Each structure stands twice: as structure tokens, then as C-alpha cells.
């Protein structure tokens, strides 16, 4: 169902990725791999306190230490020249009046060696006035909570609050009459949930090499999901013209949303400017945990009503998301996406975006949606059990389809939720038997996907090969997908196309690689750039034949005469036209710049089997199947990789990952030993099923696939664990102590 009629030649095949050999042989250059002559090392001094007023910073002793070449504090940046939209970013990069979390940068130095840098940091004297702190979301919302920002008044709340609080934003979504909906219900289930903050856990720490010269020009090499964003933000913070800063994106060892902002880059640039030498900064893993951008911890309440025959009558949700020191939680997306899977007459969600003494939140893969789905799909599973209905049937009965008004407002056009549920039903996983202490969990999930600003370039070389230039860092194999789409459009071999990520001076502005946008948007732009090049090549061939340009057509990678001239000349190959570029008008290139729209939403349905050790609460993942709509899988192997990666991150989030704070407001597990991400031996092979319901907004039907896969896992696993353990789990992570306690409490009555 939903298959396209179109026959694809290149799209849908599984060639090797162009960056593979470099990566497996260790030659790919990541953020920390570049060096420059005379390079200095940059290091940060960070707040040991969760919340403290900075009375003064004395850097004179550090600056006087031989080998120290520059010192930066908050005062080094002129905030009056920085646009208001970047004030929080600047304050996060280098604390100004207050340190708002443990690990908040308060000063930085550049020195000729690591040991001198370490010594120098110890010579910086900071006079702190330690303030009461708050890290828990519910406590931060309390009326008497320590206040992070005296000027934070809840936005979008009517009437306007008269007192400041830690609640930065209020959101409400939905339609219908929620009370009338619940009145129609035969069964109503209401439950509260909590989830811990998690980190994206990318393997590569943030790293950069900055080089500011005395004439005010700058170069920056860094590991990021969006170097154009880095350029614009850094130029603003540094008071530079945008065109004078050239940023090059390194290969990237994972981002998952966490590399969509800046932490160290502006500081490296400022240190370089003050020192007059290149400065390299590489974050330690501890710094990554304490001072990059994890996602929200949450507290949620869900209420669902249904009739005895399994039709949802009303859905309600309250979402409180802790958004870090500056309240940057993605709660609006949680509240929008929570019930997006279902066809609902009456739905209402509210969201509160809450500041707390924790690192500034940054996006994490489908930001905000996984936690909301955990809560909603847990209640959905409980409802299906209560009604005696099959889990998938119950979801199918209420699934959103084309024409459904979504819970966040718009009416869906073509969507593939039903298809994923049906594919799950017919998968042998769904009917496989379960043993003792085992459980099976089901959950569906949704993500919006996004398009955005994109500029690409395509250059035809004289030997008939093609260089493709995009501005979206490749974090999931997108260079291979770009090559496939260009091969499809031009009708040439994939191996004759090489795609690179250009620096910020080589292309127009490109939005960050986020929102599952890159294969969709850069692909869309490249298809148009290829069409641009093809039109030029048709014109060249027509001139060679001396016939009108309209009298030729493109077929199978060749130009051939058409209409009245059909058959008059032998088709001219791509390579032949390319070889004659010099005599026919010079280099042949295609370009395209767009603000892409039409990204199709994506749904997925996950199934997981677990076994719970009744004596220890240990959860083993036995089997896992991801079913998701890709619209059209350009490179199916990397689509499967995205599905598997989302499931694995979700498994970590569900079972053991969490930010653990002490009474002192300090993070206790800032390392991979105690921030327990799954290791390979914890996981079964993650099975995948690619469903293809074409996106009407893309010529090949492509939908973004990178984010939806992390939405259902926590709910699916919670449902499986709850079944196996015989008690409903409502708090993440479902670590062994928590599962064991829940089982013991349930037994104790």
C-alpha cells in the first residue's frame, strides 16, 4: 500500500558511503584533529556551585603566569552589541552576573601547554555568593522555589503574571470540549509520570580550532550540526561582520540535536583574538555532561477516556519540562505531539517550560516528543488491557489518517501511521510466544520533520564526473543519499558523484542539520540543481546539433533530439557534453537555493520483548522491531541505521540513563561509567521494517527519518516491563533498583 508507480534506478539501492574508508581507517578529520602553527590550548574555569552570584573575578595572577597568552571572562564580550536573541547563548557560553549551574563557564584561558593552562586556572580567584538552588522540575515550579531569573515572567499566560517565577512559557493546544468528551467515556484512566534528564551521548566531545587575525578576519574549524549557525552566532557575539568569519565543519562523531548551538566556539575565537594566535579547545567528557545541552527532565499527567468498544472520547495531558538554566525545554513539541497519533474529537494539552539549576537545554532527537509519548502510550496500553482489546487493534481503531485533524491543529494530508500498525500486526514478532517473566510492549510515535533554508551547488567536470556541494553537515550518511538522488536525476553512476560539505564562504546560508531535514531539504535542492544543470546541458547539445533548445530532451543520462528532430542525431551522453564544456560556453554547473517546505510528518510503531529478573529488577531486551514510514527510503541501509539508532538511544533512556544530582546540586555521574548508556552486548539486533507512504511534498516522496525512531521506545519498553513485572512503571529510567522496588511494593500490597 502507498507504493509509488515510479521506477527508481539509483534511489533505493545500498552503495557504500563515500566517507566510509576514511572513517574506518582513522583518517577522517574530526573536531580535535586539526592543528595550526603556534597553536595555543584553551581551557575553561567552571562554577563548582549550582547557583551563585559572581561578586568578582580576579584573573591577574593567571594572566601573569608565563605561558598564558589570553584570559577571557564574561566581560570580554560586549553584550550591548549582541542581538537580544543571543543573550542567553552568550550568558551560557560565559557566565555574567550569576553562575546558574554546576559547570557553568566563568572564565577561560589560552596557554602554550595543557599543564600551564591547568595551573593558570587554579590562579583565577572567583568570589561567589552561593545561592539556594533547585534542580527538580516540580520543585522549581513551586511558589517558594529559588528564583533563577528575577525578570522571568511566564509568557503566553493570561492574565499576565505579576510575579516572576521559574516558569518561562506556557502553552496550550487542542480542540473540542474536553469535559464533554470525558462524559462520553465508559472508562477513564489518569496517571502521572516522571522522566529523568538524558544526554544525547554523542561519542565526539565538542572541539574547535579558532584563528582570528589582526585584520579582524576569522576562521573556525569545529564539530557542529550547522556551521552556518555557528558562524552567525559567533559573528554576533564577537561583533564581527558575518562575511569575515569562515567556518568549516569537521567530520562529526554524533550530534543528535546536541550540536545545534555553540558552547566553546565563541570563547576560542575571543581567546585567539586576544592572544593573536590560533586556539584549540577540546571539551572533556565531564565538561560535555556538565556544560553542553542535555534534554529535559519531566513531570507529566495524562488522562484518557474511551468507550467500551475502544473508541477514544477525550485525551488530556499536562506536561512540565525542566529546560535548564534558561528554560529552553521543548515542552511545546511535547504538548503538540503527545496525541498526534490519534484521531480525536476532544483533546487538550498544556505545557510549562521551567528553568532550573541545570545545563541549558539543547535539542535531542525529536525534542520533547519521546517523554510525552512515554506517558501517553503507557496509558494507551493500560486502556487497551482494561478494555480487553488487542494493543495494535486499539491503536488502529483510533489512528490518525489522511483528513484527521491533528491534536496540534492542522489536518493531515497523506500519513502512514495505519500502514505501520498493519505492518506490525503481520510481523512474526507480534505473534511469537513469550516465556516466564517476559513481556511485550507496543507504542506508536510521531514527529513533525522540517525543511528550511538550503543552498547547494553542483559542478559537472570535464570527464563526466560531478562534484556536489552542500552546506548541511553529514551526521547520518547523507552524502551517500545526496549522491543517490543526483545519480537518479542525472542518470549517471553513483560512483561518478562526490559530495562534500562546503564551508560557510562557499554557499548561501544553510539551516542546521536538524529536524530530520537534510535528506529532504538538501536532496530537494540538489534535485533542482541537477535539473538546472540538465537544462544547460540540453541547450549545449542543441547548439552543437544546431537545432532549437526546445527540440531536445533528457533521457537516461543523455540528451537526444525530440519532436520533429527525433532520431536525427545519435543521443549525446552526459560525458560527451561535459567534455565539450569549454567550447560550448565554459563550465557547466547547477545551483539551487530554497527555503524548503513540504516536509512530511512521520509515524512509527515499535514492538519490544523484555525479560525482567524477578530477584534483581534487571531488564533484558530480548527482541526489538521498529516499523516506520520513510516516505521513500533513498538509501535503505542508512534509513535502517536511523531506525536502529533511535531505538537504541530510547533503550538507554528507558532503562538506565539519567542525570543524577546530589543535595548540593552537583551532577554525580558526569562520565560514561555512571551515566549508563547501553553497550553493544546489552542489545539484540534491532529489526527494522521500512514502510513507504510517499510524502506529497517531495518529488521522490522522501520524508525525514532521523527523529521519529526515538519517540516510541521508552513507552514500548515501559509497557513490556510493566507486563513482565506485573506492575505499571511510571518513572524513567526503569533502573533495576526502581523496578525491584516497584515489584516488591506491588507484592507487599
Amino acid at each position, binding site marked *: 500500500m502507498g507504493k509509488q508507480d515510479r521506477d527508481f534506478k539509483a534511489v533505493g539501492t545500498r552503495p557504500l558511503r563515500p566517507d566510509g574508508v576514511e572513517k574506518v581507517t582513522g583518517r577522517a578529520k574530526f573536531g580535535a584533529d586539526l592543528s595550526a602553527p603556534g597553536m595555543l590550548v584553551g581551557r575553561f574555569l567552571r562554577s563548582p556551585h549550582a547557583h551563585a552570584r559572581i561578586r568578582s573575578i580576579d584573573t591577574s595572577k593567571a594572566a601573569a603566569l608565563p605561558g598564558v597568552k589570553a584570559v577571557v571572562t564574561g566581560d570580554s564580550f560586549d553584550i550591548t552589541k549582541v542581538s537580544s536573541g543571543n543573550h542567553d547563548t552568550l550568558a551560557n557560553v560565559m557566565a555574567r552576573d550569576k553562575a546558574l549551574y554546576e559547570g557553568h563557564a566563568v572564565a577561560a584561558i589560552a596557554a602554550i601547554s595543557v599543564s600551564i593552562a591547568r595551573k593558570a586556572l587554579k590562579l583565577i580567584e572567583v568570589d561567589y555568593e552561593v545561592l539556594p538552588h533547585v534542580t527538580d522540575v516540580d520543585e522549581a515550579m513551586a511558589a517558594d522555589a529559588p528564583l533563577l531569573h528575577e525578570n522571568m515572567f511566564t*509568557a*503566553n*499566560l*493570561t492574565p499576565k503574571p505579576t510575579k516572576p517565577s521559574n516558569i518561562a512559557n*506556557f*502553552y*496550550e*493546544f*487542542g*480542540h473540542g470540549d474536553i469535559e464533554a468528551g470525558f462524559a462520553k467515556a465508559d472508562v477513564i484512566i489518569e496517571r502521572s509520570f516522571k522522566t529523568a534528564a538524558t544526554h*544525547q551521548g554523542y561519542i565526539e566531545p565538542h572541539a574547535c580550532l579558532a584563528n582570528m587575525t589582526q585584520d579582524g578576519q576569522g576562521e573556525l574549524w569545529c564539530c557542529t550540526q550547522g556551521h552556518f549557525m555557528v558562524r552567525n552566532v559567533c559573528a554576533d557575539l564577537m561583533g564581527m561582520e558575518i562575511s569575515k568569519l569562515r567556518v568549516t565543519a569537521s567530520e562529526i562523531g554524533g550530534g*543528535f*540535536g*546536541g550540536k*545545534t548551538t555553540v558552547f566553546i566556539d565563541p570563547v576560542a575565537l575571543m581567546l585567539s583574538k586576544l592572544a593573536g594566535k590560533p586556539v584549540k579547545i577540546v571539551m572533556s567528557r565531564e565538561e560535555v555532561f556538565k556544560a553542553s545541552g542535555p534534554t529535559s527532565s519531566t513531570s507529566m499527567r495524562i488522562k484518557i477516556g474511551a468507550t467500551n468498544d475502544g473508541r477514544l472520547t477525550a485525551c488530556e495531558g499536562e506536561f512540565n519540562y525542566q529546560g535548564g538554566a534558561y528554560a529552553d525545554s*521543548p515542552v*511545546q*513539541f511535547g504538548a*503538540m505531539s503527545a496525541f498526534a497519533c490519534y484521531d480525536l474529537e476532544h483533546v*487538550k494539552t*498544556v505545557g510549562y517550560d521551567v528553568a532550573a539549576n541545570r545545563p541549558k537545554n539543547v*535539542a*535531542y*532527537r*525529536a*525534542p520533547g516528543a519521546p517523554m510525552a509519548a512515554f506517558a501517553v502510550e503507557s496509558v494507551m496500553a493500560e486502556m487497551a488491557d482494561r478494555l480487553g482489546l488487542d494493543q495494535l487493534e486499539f491503536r488502529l481503531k483510533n489512528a490518525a489518517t489522511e483528513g484527521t485533524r491533528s491534536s*496540534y*491543529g*492542522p*489536518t*493531515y*494530508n497523506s500519513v502512514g501511521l495505519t500502514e505501520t500498525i498493519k505492518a506490525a500486526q503481520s510481523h512474526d514478532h507480534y505473534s511469537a510466544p513469550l516465556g516466564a517473566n517476559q513481556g511485550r510492549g507496543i507504542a506508536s510515535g510521531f*514527529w*513533525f*520533520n*522540517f*525543511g*528550511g*533554508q538550503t543552498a547547494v551547488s553542483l559542478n559537472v567536470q570535464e570527464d563526466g564526473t560531478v562534484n556536489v556541494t552542500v552546506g548541511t553537515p553529514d551526521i547520518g550518511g547523507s552524502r551517500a543519499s545526496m549522491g543517490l538522488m543526483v545519480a537518479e536525476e542525472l542518470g549517471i553512476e553513483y560512483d561518478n558523484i562526490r559530495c562534500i560539505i562546503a564551508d560557510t564562504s562557499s554557499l548561501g546560508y544553510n539551516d542546521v542539520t*536538524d*529536524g*530530520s*531535514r537534510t535528506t529532504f531539504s538538501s536532496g530537494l535542492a540538489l534535485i533542482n540543481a541537477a535539473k538546472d544543470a540538465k537544462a544547460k546541458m540540453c541547450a549545449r547539445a542543441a547548439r552543437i546539433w544546431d537545432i532549437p533548445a526546445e527540440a531536445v530532451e533528457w533521457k537516461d543520462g543523455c540528451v537526444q533530439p525530440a519532436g520533429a528532430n527525433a532520431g536525427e542525431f545519435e543521443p549525446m551522453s552526459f560525458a560527451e557534453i561535459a567534455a565539450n564544456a569549454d567550447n560550448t560556453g565554459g563550465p557547466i554547473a547547477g545551483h539551487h537555493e530554497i*527555503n524548503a*517546505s*513540504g*516536509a512530511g510528518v512521520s509515524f512509527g510503531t515499535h514492538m519490544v520483548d523484555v525479560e525482567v529478573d524477578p530477584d534483581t529488577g534487571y531488564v533484558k531486551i530480548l527482541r526489538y522491531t521498529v516499523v516506520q514510514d520513510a516516505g521513500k527510503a533513498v538509501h535503505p541501509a542508512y534509513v535502517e541505521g536511523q531506525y536502529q539508532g533511535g531505538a537504541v538511544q530510547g533503550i538507554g533512556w528507558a532503562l538506565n540513563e539519567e542525570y543524577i544530582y546530589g543535595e548540593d546540586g552537583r551532577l554525580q555521574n558526569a562520565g560514561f561509567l555512571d551515566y549508563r548508556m547501553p553497550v553493544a552486548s546489552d542489545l539484540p539486533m534491532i529489526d527494522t521494517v521500512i514502510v513507504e507512504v510517499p510524502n506529497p*511534498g517531495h518529488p521522490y516522496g522522501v520524508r*525525514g527519518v532521523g*527523529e521519529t525512531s526515538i519517540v516510541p521506545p521508552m513507552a514500548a519498553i515501559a509497557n513490556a516491563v510493566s507486563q513482565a513485572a506485573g506492575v505499571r512503571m511510571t518513572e524513567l529510567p526503569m533502573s533495576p533498583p526502581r523496578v525491584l522496588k516497584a515489584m516488591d511494593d506491588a507484592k507487599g500490597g
Partner: protein
Amino acid sequence: MVKVMLWGSLAALAEGKPELEIEAKNIKQLLQRLAEDHPGLKPVLEKGVSVSIDGMMYNDAWFEEISSENEICILPRIEGG
């Protein structure tokens, strides 16, 4: 005239009306008139919103045409990871 749906808490800032009628031919005019007619919306619109036209999401797309035939929703600016 086009009909525009506002998300819940945004509607509260527009005198509590979840649906508004606006004279506009494209997104630029729509956002401009919304801010003029309902000053309470101005800060939110200035911070940036997404506009959904028949289920398709648009950010920063002034010239996208709209008519009474379209379903138009103002939504928080869509981002991702």
C-alpha cells in the same frame, strides 16, 4: 478573507478567539495584519512562528500564497534535533 487557527495559549492572547478572519493574500500580509489587529500576539509572532497551510509547514516564507480555500494554522516555530 482567510480563516486562521491559533494554538490554545496563543488564542488567549488574541482575546480568546481560537479562529480569526484576516484579509491576506500571503503569509507576510497574514502575520502583519495579525499583529496589527491583535497586539497581544505581536511578541510571539516576532519571536518566530511556523505557519501550516493545508498541513504543510512554513517558516519564514512571506510570499507563500493563501486563500479562503486553505486551512491555516499558526504554530510554535518547529525545530528539531
